[in-house]
Each structure stands twice: as C-alpha cells, then as structure tokens.
C-alpha cells in the first residue's frame, strides 16, 4: 500500500488553491507560479506512475488496478473513497495533468483581471477532472464530475468572450454549456441510482464499486434502458451529434485555459464513462445501442467537418473540429471490439493533447491580436514564428499526420470499425473526415499564418517566457507518442482488455440464450 500517491496527485492542486487563497490578489505572478508548481508536481507524479505501471504491469501482462486506495466513506450506502489506476485511466490521468499543467501557462487577455480567482478555480477544475478518471467508485466518480461543472460555468461567464461570426455572448455560451452538462448528469444520476438499487437487490448489499457492479448480469431490458440513459448523459458530454452544439459555443466563449481543459480532457469524461461504466457494466445494453451510436458518430465526423469549412472564427474551427474528432472516438466505441475500443481510447488521448495545443495557440494569437476573426488575420508567421510552429504542429496532428500522436489511434479505430461488417459503410463515410480535416485546418493555417505581412500586427509579440511551456510540453508529447505509439497503445490495450472481454462474454452468453430459446 504505502504512500497514497493518487491522493497526493489529487491534493497537490487543491493545496495550491488553498495557498493561493492567502496570497494577495496583486501578486498574480506568484499565484500563477503556485498553480504551475502544484500542477507540475501532479504531472511528475503521474509520469512516474505511468512509467512504473508500464514497466511493471503492462509489459509483464499483469494489468488491472494498481496504486489502489480504499477508505470506506459512507458505509451504510456502500460508498467507498476508492481510487486506482489501470491502463485505461492512466492515459487519461496523464492527459489531465499534461493539459492541467500547460493550461496554467496559456494566455488569455481577460485573465489579467481577477487572476487569483481564475487560478483557484482552474486548480479546482483540474482536480475534479482527475478525480473522475481515478475513481473506482461510481459515487466518487459522480461527485468529482459535479465538482467540475461549477468552475467551468463561472470561468466562462467571467473570463469568456463573445464571437464576431455568431451572435453569441459569453453568458449564453456558459449557460448553454452548463445546462447541457447538467441535463446530461441528471440522466446519469437517475441511471446510476437505478442501477445502484437494482444491484443492491441482487447482491444484498449496497455498492457503488464499478468492478462489483460489472460482475452482475443485469436483465436485458434493464440494461437497454439504463444504458440508454447513461449513453445520453455521456454522449452529451462527448458532444455527440445532435447534442453537440454547446461545444463550439462553449469553447469559443471560454478563456484559453478552459478551452484547453474542456476540449482536451473534460469531454473525454464522456467517452471514459461510456466505456468504463456503460460498456463494462451494461454490455448487452451497449450492444443494443451500438448501431445508433455508429450512425451519430458518422454524423459527428462528416457534419462537423463540413461545418468547419464555413467557419471564419478560429475558435469555432477548432471547436467544430473537436466535435468531428469525437466521431472517431464514437466509431471506435460502436465497433465494440478490442481494436476499435483501443482506438477510441487512444483517440481520446490523442485528441486531448492535440486540441490543447491548438486551443493554446489559437488562444495565444487571440490574446496577442485581440482578434480571432480569420479574415482579419494573415501572415502572422512574420510576427510570431514560434506560435506558427506550434499552430502548424497542432494542425498537422489534427489532420492525422503519421508520426504525430493522432495517426495510430485513428488507424486503429478504423481497423476496429472495419472488422464489424455492419460498420464498414459508416466507416468509409467517416474516412472522408480525413480529407475534410486536412482541408479546414490547412485553410486556417494558410489564412492565419501565411501570406504577405500585415503591418497592423507588427506590434504583437511572439511566444516568450513561460508561454513557451505549453508549446514545448505538448509538442514533446504529440511527437513522442506519435513516433513511439506502443507507449500509448500497450497501455490502453492492457486497460481495455477486461472491458472487451466482458463484451465478448456478454455476446456469447446472449447467443447461447438465444439458442436455448
């Protein structure tokens, strides 16, 4: 057992937030440094965990949860403060910490006022997101998830911004985002309580333990209904068509750090929950809904990619692009086989680092020029060559360039999808997203960065000082996991195996039952 490393990772930002409370608000640099140091501690601990788990659990084939902590909390209700990581949650935890740390050093011009409150909320937000990924108890998972919603809302409406291309205020964006998250979570809560009651009836003792819940064979009817409710909640969060429209508005309205965290990790809670809770506990229900998810997934990819072509606001391009990329995740989920699920999970990680870099660069340019309206910009590589490099790397990762993080996940997802005969046509349609993705990002790159110098932007400063951190850290991860994909894929594979096995088992059981009838 030993040192409760996961709690330490969780607490580090919270301690940072507590320290910041006592720092005078004029000292915004110190507050930022505190936020940077505490998130850095979490990041380093997570990287160590990742390496230890990779060498001792993945390479040896042991797998399963490690670094577990179990403290009974509300014993009567069966709530346990139960943490742990496996090959599925560790990449997500790593992603959270990478983005958490780098988002502290992102730039938004609006954060110059009330910096103290901003960083305190940011640290709480980061902790909340981390908690969802390492909770092994459904109740704790949900608790952390709710912790996330409040800071997001406050941060968007205080430090957010409106758009020039769409009649959207930051208040509208923040409200829309929050209501979506809350409606989603209402369905989740209902599904969760129902499942809890049903499980308590079967087991005799109440429990929120995900692993225990997954051992129960819920009736088919029950699984279909409850998975449906859960899937609604989680896919709202994952911005699945047609419940996606909060996402571009929300990201566009949010300050840079929030866009990074939201697009990078927060929406991945949807995918994480869908797989970890939905598929794992309710495999039969999941199989029932898979065709519908596949159809919506294709809509996500193609519909959002086509809308990207019509965007003139940088943040909307990246926002809709992230909706489009979530389609790849959903296709992987819908394939319900191990290759597709590996692809889905790896895609979540890949999209996380890449969209964080993209939002960070877009946010930087917005903060420097005070404009995100693409026709106003142009030739910015003259004034900000470093930001241009970051921007191009993000764009290329978004376009799925091999050698960068997103190629192998996308390829794997498609292999998984093509393995299912019923998914082949949807997968072929979704593959056009690869071409469309290149079209919209390269258009934006060309129109924002390249072309003749515009003198009106001669006053803007290139990335310097601590603003280098997001560029360097994110590019290192984007390239490292792109060149050595097994660092990610082995890990993910080890985490997804039990879930995939559960799906196979459920299918064969269903087939046998069908046979006996």
């Amino acid at each position: 057992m030993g040192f409760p490393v996961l709690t330490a990772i969780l607490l580090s930002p919270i301690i940072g937030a507590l320290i910041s409370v006592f720092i005078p608000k004029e000292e915004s640099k110190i507050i930022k440094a505190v936020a940077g140091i505490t998130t850095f501690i979490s990041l380093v601990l997570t990287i160590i965990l990742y390496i230890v788990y990779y060498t001792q659990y993945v390479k040896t084939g042991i797998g399963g949860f490690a670094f577990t902590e179990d403290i009974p909390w509300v014993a009567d209700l069966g709530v346990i403060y139960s943490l742990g990581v496996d090959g599925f949650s560790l990449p997500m935890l790593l992603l959270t910490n990478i983005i958490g740390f780098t988002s502290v050093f992102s730039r938004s011009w609006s954060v110059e006022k009330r910096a103290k409150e901003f960083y305190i909320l940011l640290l709480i937000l980061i902790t909340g997101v981390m908690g969802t990924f390492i909770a092994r108890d459904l109740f704790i998972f949900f608790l952390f998830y709710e912790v996330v919603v409040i800071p997001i809302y406050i941060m968007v409406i205080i430090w957010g911004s409106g758009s020039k291309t769409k009649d959207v205020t930051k208040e509208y964006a923040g409200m829309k985002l929050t209501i979506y998250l809350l409606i989603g979570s209402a369905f989740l809560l209902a599904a969760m309580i129902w499942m809890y009651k049903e499980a308590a009836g079967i087991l005799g003792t109440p429990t929120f333990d995900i692993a225990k819940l997954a051992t129960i064979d819920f009736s088919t009817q029950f699984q279909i209904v409850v998975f449906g409710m859960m899937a609604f909640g989680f896919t709202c969060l994952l911005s699945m068509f047609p419940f996606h429209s909060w996402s571009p508005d929300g990201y566009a309205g949010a300050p840079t750090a929030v866009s990074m965290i939201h697009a990078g990790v927060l929406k991945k809670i949807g995918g994480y929950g869908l797989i970890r809770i939905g598929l794992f506990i309710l495999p039969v229900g999941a199989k029932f809904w898979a065709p519908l998810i596949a159809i919506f997934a294709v809509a996500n990819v193609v519909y959002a990619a086509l809308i990207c072509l019509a965007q003139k606001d940088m943040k909307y391009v990246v926002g809709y692009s992230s909706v489009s990329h979530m389609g790849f995740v959903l296709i992987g989920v819908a394939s319900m086989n191990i290759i597709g699920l590996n692809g889905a999970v790896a895609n979540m990680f890949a999209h996380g680092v890449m969209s964080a870099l993209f939002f960070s660069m877009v946010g930087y340019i917005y903060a420097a020029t005070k404009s995100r309206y693409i026709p106003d910009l142009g030739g910015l590589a003259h004034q900000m060559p470093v930001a241009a490099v970051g921007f191009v790397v993000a764009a290329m990762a978004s376009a799925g360039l091999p050698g960068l993080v997103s190629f192998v996940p996308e390829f794997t997802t498609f292999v998984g999808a093509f393995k299912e005969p019923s998914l082949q046509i949807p997968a072929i349609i979704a593959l056009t997203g690869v071409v469309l993705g290149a079209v919209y990002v390269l258009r934006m790159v060309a129109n924002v960065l390249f072309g003749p110098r515009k003198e009106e932007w001669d006053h803007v400063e290139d990335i310097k000082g601590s603003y280098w951190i997001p560029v360097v850290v994110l590019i290192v991860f984007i390239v490292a996991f792109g060149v050595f994909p097994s660092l990610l894929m082995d890990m993910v594979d080890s985490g997804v195996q039990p879930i995939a096995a559960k799906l196979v088992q459920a299918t064969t059981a269903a087939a046998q039952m069908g046979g006996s009838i």
Partner: protein
Amino acid sequence: MIDFALHNAWLIPLLPAIAFLLIFLVFRPLPKVSAFIGITAIFLSFVLAVHVGIGVIQAGDQFVEHPLKQVVTWFEMSGLKIEMGVQIDPTSAMMLFMVSLVALMVNIYSLGYMHGDQAFSRFYAFLALFAMSMLGLVIAPNLLQMFVFWELVGLCSYLLIGFWWHKYSAREAAKKAFITTRTGDFGLLLGILLLQINFGTLDLMTLGEMIPNFQEYTNLSVGGLTAIAAILFLGPIGKSGQFPLHVWLPDAMEGPTPVSALIHAATMVVAGVYLVGRSLILFQTVPGAMAFVAFMGGFTALFAATIAITQTEMKKILAYSTVSQLGYMMLALGAGSLTGGMFHLFTHAFFKSLMFLGAGSVLHAMNNDADIWKYGGLKKKMPITYWTFLIGCLAIAGIFPFAGFFSKDEILLVVKEASHGAQFAGLYTLLFWMATITAALTAFYMFRMFFICFHGEPRDKSFHPHEAPFSMAFPLVVLSIFSIFGGFIGAPWVEHGFGYYVRLGEYHHPSVDWAIIIVSTILALGSIFLAYWIYGKKAVSHEALAQKFAPLYKISFNKYYIDEIYLWLIHNVLDGLGRALWWFDITVVDGIINGIGNAAKILGSILRRVQTGKLQHYALVLFAGVVILVLIMSFADTSSASLSLLGGVR
C-alpha cells in the same frame, strides 16, 4: 563495409533525421553549419546506399526472391500488429541509390541557389526531413510504414512548396498540393485498411504470397479484389500526379527550384509508381486493375503532353512533362512490367532533375523571371547549363544512346507485348499508339523550350545572364553523366542488366525490337526537327500556328480548364454544403435547444406570477383549497379512490 551497410540500412534514413533535428533545434542561426550538417548526413547516406547497392549486385539475384528484412514491432494488440523496418532487395536498393544521389546533388546545388536566402537553415532542415521520409518510404517492408512515410514526404512537399510562405501564390500552392494528394490518400488508406481486414497483414512479402491465392485466404471475389486495387491506386493517382488529381503538381513549382527537382521530379512524385510497383502482385492478380492502371497512366501521359506543348514557363513545361512521364511509368506497370516502370523511373530521375536544376540555373540568371518568351540566346552566356540541358532534352526525347532511349523503348516494348496478351488486347494496342504519340510530343515540347530559351537572340535585353556558380554547375555535370550512361545498365547487350535484378517473376532478357527503335527514333528526330523548324529557324511563325489552331491552343494553354472546374466545385458545392449545414446547425439544432430553453423561461414567467408576495393572495388560495377538498369529500363515493388519496380523512 558492404556487409555493414546491408545490415545497418536503417541508418540511411536515420542520418538525415538526425541532421533535421540538429539543424532545426540547434544550428538554425548558423546557415553554413546547417548546410554542412545537411550535406554531410545525406553524403553518408549516399555512401551507405552505394554499398548496399554493390552488396545487392554482388549477391546476384538472391535478393530478388528473398529480400533482406529487419523489423521491429511498432505497435501491437490482439489482432493487429504493425512493424517498422527495412527491406533490402534490388528495387529498394536501386531507389536508395537514386534518391540519395539526387538528394545529395540537390543539397549541393542549393548551396549556390539558396545563397543569401533568409531561411537558408530552414531549407536545409526541410531537405533533411524530406530525405529521411523518402528513404524511409523506399525501404518500407509493409504498406503501413509506406503510408506513414508517404504522408511525411507529403508534409515535406507542403513545407517546401510553401517555403516562401509570404508569397500568396506559394501558400495556396502548398495547400492545394497537400489537399489534392490527401484526396488520393483517402483511397490509399481505405485500400490499406481493406487489405489489413481481409488478409490480416500489411507485410509486402506475406501479401505477395497470399494475394495470388486470395480465394484460399479470404472471402473476396475477383471483383472485390479489383475494387481494393483500384481504391488503393487512388493514392498513387494523387501522389504521382495522375489525371484527374494532377492539378497540384504544376502549381507545386512555386517552391524553390531545387525542391522541384528533388521532390516534384525525381523522388516524391515517383512514390506512387514505386508503391504500385511494390504491390504489383495485387494488381497482376486481377487483370482489370492492371488495365485500369495502364489506362490511367497512358491517358495521363498523352493528356499532360498536350498541355506541355503550349506552356510558357520552363518549370511549368517540365512539370507537365513530369506528369506525362509518370503516366508512362504507370503504363509500364499496368502492362505488367516492373522492370519497365522502375527502369524509366530510374533514368527519368536523373534527366528530369538535371533539367529542373538547369531551369533553376536559368531562372537564377534571369532574376527569377519565368516567362520563356523573354529568354533567348542563353547558349553563349551559359555554356554548362546549355550543354547539360541539351543532354537532358535528348535523354527525355529518347535519342540513342541517352538514358531515356533505353527506358522508353522498354516501355513501348512491354506495352506492345501486352497488346498481344489474352486480356484487354485492344486497350493495350490503343495505349501503345498513345504512348508512341506521347513520345513524339515529348520530343517536340522539350525542344520547343530548348530552342526558345537557348537559341536565337536575347529577346529582352534588360537581363544580364551569367553562368551558374560551381556549386550549381557541379550537380548539373554529375546528373548529365547519369543521363547519358544511366540507360546502359538496362541495355540489351548487358548480360545481367537492370531487369535481372528489378523484376517480378521470371527474368526476361531485354530483346531488341527494331520496329519500335526505328519508329520511335524517327518520330523523336522528326519532332526535334519540327521544333527547330518553328522555334529555332523560325521558318513558320508560331504565333500564326497558335492563331490557326486557336480553340485547341486555348484549351491546351488553359489546361483543359480543370483547375477552374475544381475551384467552382469546391467553392460552390463543398463550401456551399458547409454553409448550409452551419445554417442548419444554428437555426435548427440550436433553434430546438433555444426553443426548449425559451419554453422553460416562458413557463417560469407564468408560474412566477403565483408568487406575488401578498399575504391575502396566499390566504385566498389556501381558503380555495380547503373549499375544494371539502367539496370532494362531500360528493365522493366512500369506496372511491379519491378518498384514499386524501389519506382516508373524513
């Protein structure tokens, strides 16, 4: 050393990769050091490649059937294993030699050509990145590794076409190149996925064994496999500039000329030909796919040649010529001859990069003014460029004994043989004549350019052309030597020539078909003479000719208006769809959400009125409630449910 090179061939792409990192991350502020690192790395790769080549030749035909393979697992999961590694056989050894040699020459040439450019270091960094990617593609033992490096060379092409990104035209050309090739890559990736799903592997050797007996391993029909091959071929169509995705290649000339020579003439654009060559078994198994490849190639060859005859910029002419020659190579592959396709790829790399570098030398001398009608009489001012360019022109025209003569005749020969085959004989006969006409057109447009640029009197006196510096002249000389003698390795009188090593199936000693030799030589010489007649001797006014054939001239000059059609489609259909969907998203999807939100608001504003805050209102409601309850209780049946609802109060 040979043994070392054979077993450490992975160093060949790795050295430029290290050079890229060093230049990009460390030495960017020092242009001379950057160039030194870049040239050293590619030189070492070249040395290794030469030794690999010698090793392969010494081994005889041992490597043809049993390539030397070294792989490591790239990533793996249950049911999917992807490797990265090196496959050395004569085909890849030939490519390693050719790519590293041309890359080395271009690196040296760029010392002079890019001298003084603001981003000199960045140029060398990108050249190194490109060399890494191209060499990695060449040695790929499986299709996914090929795809990975295929995309990376595409990235380098994008970065180098847009090297002068501050120019509007360069940035648009770079974007166009990437997107157009990406469109083809959609097919390539889909084809790769379908092969992976059906055969469970992407390894070239394993696929080569499985595909001929595909019915044993898969449920695919002949039609299914033909479809996969045709889909896969979309990738080469994009990358190798075949019709209808050729549109990016002429625009790619916006990049610096050394880039055009290296990427858009000798190496990257032949990746498509190489890929088809590597997976030729797939195409050969299904004759329909072969015919498709042959037809696309033959058609592109003729199509691009008809455009090249009216263009007015050296690099544009050379670009269309490249498109045309790539079509030639595809045609050879489509006729079933790996030898023919690869041989022409090999010789073409030298004479075409030679001509591009020559054109660069001319552009350099003419202050980058691209219009050939301003040139003239450059022969006296630039003798080295003149003579080397002439060698290039003779080689591409297919004049004995220059390199192109052997490889072009080889292609005509194999197409003619295919036209006597069992299937699609009529098609191959047609293609044979198309190829012959193309050969004549090629000689004509090349010498048209040659006479306009180098002969006669200077048309624009404001230029002061000068011969290229040594760093630029040296590569011209080296490449012209290969353009003269490069074809001998495949000459009929060589015992174990090119075809002995680079082949698929049994070795056929190249035979001599005098009919083809005589016809093609007469046509080439005739075309050269015609070009001389019009543009050299000016016996016929070319303007009058253009007038006389005005409609044809216009169509050719405007490249069959294909660019315009594509632009219209993109701006109206694709973007239109995007705008329509955005409108849908805002009005319908958001509209429903906002509608629900507003409904809740309205409901709230109605219910809000209940909360008046006035005590008498609440008292009134309380009183009314009591009255209603009493009424219910007094009228209700005792056995009815309403009473139990009230808790049985009486």
